[in-house]
């Protein structure tokens, strides 16, 4: 069984088919092409996106629909292609198509979610992209807690 020694979780043993492949990596981390989605009951609703290639790289994420119900995808043709989805109508976030977004939690200041560039994962093919949305009405720094919307923008 493959094993990963991480600074945040210690040693993780995982089956091969748990690996999610990101053919293009993530912006600024293009070489990070394999991740594990680590869900722990003591950390729900958070999901950790742990890099397999760089064990010290781990993102904090949450399901996009938990942050903004009614969120709509607007994937560019290239991202649809990377996911193996047909061009044309935008896919729904349902069934095997999972959409999470990366959180930024600074030591001081408000916690935000990147709704401009959600991480879209196909569970059936274990493929993912961080999809920088087209013509997006969503912010890359969406306040996680609504009451903080006007504090420091």
């Amino acid at each position, binding site marked *: 069984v493959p094993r990963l020694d991480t600074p945040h979780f210690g040693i993780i043993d995982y089956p091969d088919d748990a690996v999610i492949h990101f053919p293009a990596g993530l912006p600024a981390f293009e070489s990070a092409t394999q991740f594990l989605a680590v869900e722990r009951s003591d950390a729900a609703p*958070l999901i950790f996106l742990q890099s397999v290639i760089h064990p010290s790289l781990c*993102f904090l994420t949450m399901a996009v629909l938990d942050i903004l119900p009614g969120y709509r995808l607007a994937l560019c043709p290239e991202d649809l292609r990377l996911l193996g989805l047909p061009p044309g109508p935008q896919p729904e976030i349902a069934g095997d198509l999972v959409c999470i977004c990366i959180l930024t*939690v600074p030591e001081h200041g408000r916690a935000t979610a*990147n709704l401009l560039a959600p991480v879209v994962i196909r569970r059936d093919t274990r493929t993912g992209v*961080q999809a920088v949305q087209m*013509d997006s009405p969503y912010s890359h*720094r969406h306040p996680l807690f609504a009451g903080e919307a006007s504090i420091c923008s």
Partner: protein
Amino acid sequence: MLVITRRAGEGILIGDEIELQVIELSPSRVKLGIAAPRSLSILRKEIQLAAEENLAASQTLPLDRLHGLLDRLRVPRG
């Protein structure tokens, strides 16, 4: 910032090697063609934003900070 007005089909040159052409205009968007050396990286600006935000997010994880976050997330929101 230098501002230049162009019509569809017109272009501009930047240095010797970069050509920008306005291919098509519609009320809400512009289609641009760019001819430049392969060695130059050309990105939609949102991708740069995503890259910067990923760098900030990658510094997020110290687990001691998560408890406060989880406490707030688990309060029913409305």
